[in-house]
């Protein structure tokens, strides 16, 4: 039986990466290990998301540090781009090409034969639902169609790592849902799908993990609940649906970890802020045994939006 590949060959690894544009900071001291699945890069404009993606794909070189994409350095494009596809934020295309020609020409650069290029081009065009317009010039495409043809180009060679810079920008709701489903499908196949976005509720919906960036620094990374748990200076918010919220409020105030309890506007629930969620959940079990019927318990601020607000500040978010 062959030995399993080293762990670094299944990860995108950035070690102490910094990139400066003259005096201007792009990213600084970024260390990350990105496993397969959907990873979202979140941050305001200028936070370093695109620079990080350009560094991973070798379009810019780090001032210091090293990067490895499944064990391949970005300085080795011959190997890297057989593993990786990148849909950039640049909204420009080689002139005079149809959607199909754009993908086909790109695939020819891989050294594939004509028939193979045709097969792969149509396959990727079908995956992004762009078959009918594929024979028209890209110059006449809508913003959404341009986004999709870029996505088709990124996935055309069946890469194991996909880097997508704001791929949902300009898509209408239906196509947006289809595209998110495609990301999930690709992630389910064991691929890395690294997506940057500033639409937080979408990130929340699609991400297996997030990387929060601000001013060129990574301020948090990991699964969103894990990140939320680590923000100890912000009490966790929990919404409890029950039959007697007022009685529940009087009981939970005895608990030292609870810092705030507020009746929900509809009168059917209680919003709690606690500094120790695990301790609070244990208390809740005890209360439930004492005559209060609890319908549901759900944390309300372990989403990207709240985490982003706590870490970066609402004024910076878009």
């Amino acid at each position: 039986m062959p030995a399993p590949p080293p762990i670094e060959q299944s990860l995108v690894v950035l070690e102490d990466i910094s990139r400066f544009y003259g005096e201007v900071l792009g990213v600084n001291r970024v260390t990350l290990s990105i496993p397969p699945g959907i990873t979202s890069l979140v941050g305001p404009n200028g936070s370093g998301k695109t620079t990080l993606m350009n560094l991973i794909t070798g379009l810019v070189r780090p001032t210091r540090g090293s990067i490895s994409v499944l064990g391949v350095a970005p300085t080795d494009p011959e190997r890297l781009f057989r593993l990786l596809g990148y849909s950039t934020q640049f909204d420009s295309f080689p002139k005079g090409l149809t959607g199909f020609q754009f993908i086909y020409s790109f695939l020819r650069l891989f050294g594939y034969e004509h028939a193979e290029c045709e097969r792969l081009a149509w396959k990727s065009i079908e995956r992004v639902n762009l078959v009918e317009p594929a024979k028209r010039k890209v110059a006449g495409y809508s913003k959404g169609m341009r986004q999709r043809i870029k996505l088709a180009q990124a996935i055309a060679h069946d890469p194991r790592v996909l880097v997508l810079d704001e791929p949902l920008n300009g898509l209408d709701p239906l196509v947006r849902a289809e595209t998110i489903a495609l990301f999930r499908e690709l992630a389910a196949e064991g691929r890395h799908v690294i997506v940057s976005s500033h639409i937080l509720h979408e990130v929340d919906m699609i991400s297996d993990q997030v990387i929060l960036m601000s001013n060129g620094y990574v301020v948090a990374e990991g699964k969103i609940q894990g990140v939320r748990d680590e923000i100890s200076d912000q009490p966790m918010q929990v919404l409890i649906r029950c039959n007697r919220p007022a009685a529940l409020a009087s009981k939970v105030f005895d608990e030292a970890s609870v810092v705030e309890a507020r009746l929900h506007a509809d009168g059917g629930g209680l919003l709690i802020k606690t500094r120790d969620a695990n301790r609070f959940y244990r208390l809740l079990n005890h209360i439930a045994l004492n005559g209060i019927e609890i319908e549901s318990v759900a944390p309300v601020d372990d989403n990207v939006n709240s985490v982003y607000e706590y870490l970066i500040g609402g004024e910076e978010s878009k």
Partner: protein
Amino acid sequence: MTPKFPSANFRTWRLQIAAVIRLEMKKTFFAKRGLWVYLLALAPVLLFMGRAIDLMRTSETRQEMASAHPVSSEVLGKIRPSMNEDEPGMTIDDVIKKAGEPYARRAFYAGRGRRGRTQIVSMSYTDQQDDYTFTFVDGELVGVNRREHPNLQQDTLIFATVFQFFYLRLAIFFGCVGIFMNLFRGEMIDKSLHFYLLAPIRREVLLVGKYLAGLAATVVIFTTSTALQLWMLLLPYDASAYLHGAGWHHIFAYLGVTALACLGYGSVFLAAGLLVRNPIIPAATVLLWESANLFLPAALKKISVIFYLQSLCPVVAPPEKDMNPLLALLISSAEATRPAWAITGLVALTLVILVVASMRARKLEINYGTD
């Protein structure tokens, strides 16, 4: 199904180079910003076409005149004004008696000297080769003007002058600026270069592909122009003797020099497009360097394209004696070297420049904001 990736080898590189050329061809041949390259290539063709049309028209007219007023060169050569003041010169009637009626005759009166108004008459003859104009003052022959009709030998010198001083140094030079500088710089301006850099292609292979695409475009455009110019040069003449002599050698030499000029200047401006943002600066610098070639030490002369090209030109075209010094500087000739050395030197220079360019291409980053 995961496609099988071709391993990186010469076959893959060949396929990748072919793919780059296919993509670049359309841009290099049909780019709107490259339209002026065609005008540069077309200008000398139009020049020689105009001359050919003029020569053919005047030749036809001369033959008609000669048929209507036949006279031999021998007879016309013997008609001379008197060299001795005491001897009376030939009169109009004497000339008509010897040479017959002229095909053109003009008469007018001039001045008011001691002898009153002076009658000036000019009579034109042709022997099909040359034009003779006899001038009479008050009926006496005082002057003979023999104007040689243009011939192929003279015109090959004119062609050599235009080829070396305009075509090589300006038309092909700036044509290569337009096409090769755009191969990388144009795509940075259009923000489309990253598509190449996102493919599994070595930067060196990309550079070679782009260079070959530019070379194919410039060679086709400029050698076609050279061929058309040569055709226009030969069109008014019976060129069979020329072609049986050095003619074909000259034609192939000019076509070869044109292609080599594209090869050399192409590499220079491809590298410049990778190194410098503004095309005017490298173009002006290289033009100055190439023009100052005459004054450079022998070792430095060899680091220029024109040095090798001039050595390969089949006809030497010396600058005019009374030429403006600034223009003379621009068109100064370099000391010739042997053709084999010239070709080897030019190819070696091109390779060195391409190696430098590929080193720069390896470090190329996409940063459209500052490009």
